[in-house]
């Protein structure tokens, strides 16, 4: 059997990427400022992590407008949901296994 620690998703090593996924898994969609309000992070840093998650097909970016202002929103993908949930399971396993 694989050790729980090996089941952790390398992509979720980052506190910021974990934050983004946690927020998106319980919300239909969020915009950049919503995420910034939840995670202690600079704009540039947040944008980079969003890009990484998007490239891995874990989140989806929707470009929209409110009036003339751009409003980009993010949603979690099915693949992202599955990956994040198994990451959570692995974390729980680490806590429960070692005693």
């Amino acid at each position, binding site marked *: 059997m694989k050790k729980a*620690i090996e089941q952790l998703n390398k992509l979720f090593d980052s*506190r910021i990427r*974990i*934050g983004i996924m946690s927020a998106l898994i*319980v*919300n239909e969609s969020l915009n950049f400022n919503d995420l910034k309000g*939840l995670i202690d992070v600079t704009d540039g840093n947040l944008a980079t992590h969003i890009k990484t998650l998007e490239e891995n097909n874990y989140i989806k970016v929707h470009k929209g407008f409110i009036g003339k202002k751009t409003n980009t929103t993010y949603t979690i993908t099915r693949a992202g949901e599955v990956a994040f949930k198994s990451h959570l399971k692995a*974390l729980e396993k*680490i*806590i429960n296994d070692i005693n």
Partner: protein
Amino acid sequence: MQQEEKNISLQTLKDIHGIMERSSRFLSLSGWSGVWAGCTALAGALAARAMLLQLHDSYRDYYHQTVSIDKTAPEYRQVVMNFVWLALGVLFVALAGGVYFTWKKAKKEGATIWNNASKKMVAELLIPLLAGGVFATAFLIEGLELYIPAICLAFYGLGLINGSKYTRSDIKYLGMLEVALGCVSLFVRGYGLLLWTIGFGILHILYGIIMWRKYDKA
């Protein structure tokens, strides 16, 4: 080593849970907002009672319908309009103070008052509230002022139940109490203002104190 892994995992799970909760529920709602709204309602109710007593020797006689009054009389219409202005004033003062205390709490926590969760909470609260406003206006136009406290209580309670999904779930029980009071007030004629005072005054103050002790105090 293993213990360290365990601690890191535990902390990570805690962080995840925190973000999930903060992103989907507006938690900065201050207990003081409830106390303020309740006190404003009490003051408003006292003013309303004074206005009613001015209208009749005993407003209860009228509300029990043991005396009849001419509803088309200009004095009566004037008192009704004064009531409407008083109600709008109370609503404004209660809301302004409520927003202020919640804004202060959010600022202290380093959170914002206008985020995804609070927007959803307000939108959900507003749906029944606006419907209640339309009902109250229609009843007012028809000269059925007696039912307005019941409408205010019931629709406000439904709004709280609806909005509670996006804030502390305790708010749901406050909503249920308001709806229950609204329903009761349909049947006990003559106690509309009293039940309104309990619902908007006493219950808000009690809930504000409970919420403050539970979440704000620490």
